[in-house]
């Protein structure tokens, strides 16, 4: 992906995710301030920024948790996300991983994946749901991808922190989304786990669009993708990691003030 693509404002119908002039304020505090961000299909994008820059709020807006006060949010070119709730947006194909690993502690790893697997989400469909052989195969494949095959019968709550992060990514994968929003996947991981996670993400991006929010610069570097810097609710700079790290404004925001 070239740096030019990041700076240019593409046509809406070319994008997978299109945020334009989005503002959100909480009791006078502007969490997002006319934020514009465009992701095209098949892109891997890292978003960095200091605390309070609006990274998580941006994800909240995209996934329907928070309604923007102003601005446009479109998915896949033409679907207005500001009118839909979380469940609808998830079913459209936007998966989200939380900052804190959020898995179902009282369910086994297998059950966690079973709950996430694509399919009818209706109440009565769930009542009479049985896993098909094909779905079992998919679960096995994902278990293998996230290296949890041996732990599939364990309660998710008993997994290590890194394993929970992976399980959550696995749950995203088995949802088969078009776009993945991943909030700090490397948080609290060992170096080895971080490295493995980067490999995993690069694997995923082969057939998904991915937005990663991350603090860990080494991790971002290992992703080798375009970077967008958020600050005070809007985009401060975009480009390669080296380019933004050399940006005077970015340096001020991170080190100065």
């Amino acid at each position, binding site marked *: 992906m070239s740096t030019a693509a990041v700076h240019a404002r593409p046509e809406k119908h070319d994008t997978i995710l299109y945020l334009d002039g989005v503002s959100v304020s909480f009791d006078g505090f502007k969490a997002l301030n006319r934020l514009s961000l465009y992701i095209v299909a098949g892109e891997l994008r890292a978003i960095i920024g200091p605390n309070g820059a609006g990274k998580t709020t941006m994800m909240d807006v995209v996934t329907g948790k928070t309604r923007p006060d102003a601005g446009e949010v479109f998915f896949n070119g033409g679907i207005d996300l500001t009118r839909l709730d979380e469940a609808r947006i998830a079913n459209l194909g936007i998966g989200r991983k939380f900052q804190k690993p959020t898995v179902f*502690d009282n369910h086994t790893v297998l059950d966690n994946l079973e709950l996430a697997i694509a399919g009818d989400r*209706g109440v009565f469909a769930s009542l009479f749901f049985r896993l098909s052989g094909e779905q079992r195969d998919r679960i096995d494949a994902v278990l293998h991808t996230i290296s949890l095959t041996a732990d599939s019968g364990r309660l998710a709550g008993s997994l290590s922190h890194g394993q929970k992060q992976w399980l959550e990514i696995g749950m995203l994968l088995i949802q088969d989304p078009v776009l993945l929003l991943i909030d700090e996947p490397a948080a609290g991981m060992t170096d080895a786990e971080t490295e493995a996670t980067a490999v995993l993400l690069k694997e995923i991006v082969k057939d998904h669009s991915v937005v990663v929010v991350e603090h860990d610069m080494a991790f971002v570097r290992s992703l080798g993708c375009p970077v967008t810097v958020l600050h005070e609710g809007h985009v401060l700079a975009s480009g390669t990691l080296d380019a933004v790290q050399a940006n005077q404004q970015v340096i001020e925001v991170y080190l100065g003030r």
Partner: protein
Amino acid sequence: MTSTRSRAPRPLAGGLLAGSGAAAATIGLLLAAAVLVPVLNLAVAADSPVHMPTWVVSLVGKYLTFALLALSVDLIWGFCGILSLGHGAFFALGGYAIGMHLMREIGGRGVYGNPLLPDFMVFLNWSELPWYWHGFDSFPFALLMVVLVPGLLAFVFGWFAFRSRVTGVYFSIISQALTFALMLAFFRNDMGFGGNNGLTDFKDVLGFDLQDDRTRAALFALTAVVLAAAYFCCRLIILSRLGKVLVAVRDAESRVRFLGYRVEYYKLFVFVFSAMLAGIAGALYVPQVGIINPSEFAPANSIEIVIWVAIGGRGTLHGAILGAILVNYLKTWFTGAIPELWLFALGGLFIAVTLLLPTGIVGLAEHLRRRRPPATGDETPHLARETAP
């Protein structure tokens, strides 16, 4: 940066994972009781040491209706995390529905001998039956209302509450307000439900004398069988993917939403189902105790149900049944022997269970059986969790 979070799994799902042994035992015991108790009451001579007097049959029958009520609360609280402090209202509505049928059954045998109007209406100088009393002369219609009225109320209330994402203590408080409002309403004479005397002096059901030992034994057997069936249904729900979604909602509601589930529909389904179970419990309760009055709507009653479940073991269906029977047996014993201490005992139970026995008796038993330290982790995570960046 988030550090390792200390959210260890609570052993609440222990009952879920427990083999079908506990389930088979529960159903077996209930069905055995449905046969044995009537036999011990009717077929064994009164002077025999194993004879069971009718008052005991009715008392245990009452416990079983409470067990069904506890089951309904456990289903939503234990598995879905919805703490309803108004479930007594659904129980009472079911009771009123069957009570209205039993009132109509009295017919001309009331004190005032009016063939159509129940005594209290004659006493209030009413000349005709209110519209909502029509149809209750039919037993099937009354049965339908037993599940429909609580179900409908739960649907409307739940629809508003869950769609607006009223959760946690907020839900608890407004559900308490609901039952409180209903209590005030039913205390009014002009509501047409007998005011504070409620509905009583029932004569018979389907032509069987309610005072007859055989009718009472049959009601007991019916209660035990219905409880067993309800337990079975709840277990089916819990073991299905729907049940897994419910537990997931309890533990991480927003995660479930982001997986694409419409959490409010799941909550609504289980809330309505639970309200119907509570209604059935009320309908079984009223013919056995012979009265239904507005005090059944009292908020205190609804909270008491929760403690039955907590003592037995929240999130374990058989725990709810066990807890209801145990606490109510204690209540019977206390109010007979040392009535002035009962509220101390009940209040103490509330405190002790929440502080010392968060998994209830069933959880304790499982813990002892496994003979290993419980995976408690940090049991006092502060609310500040909410304020994390």
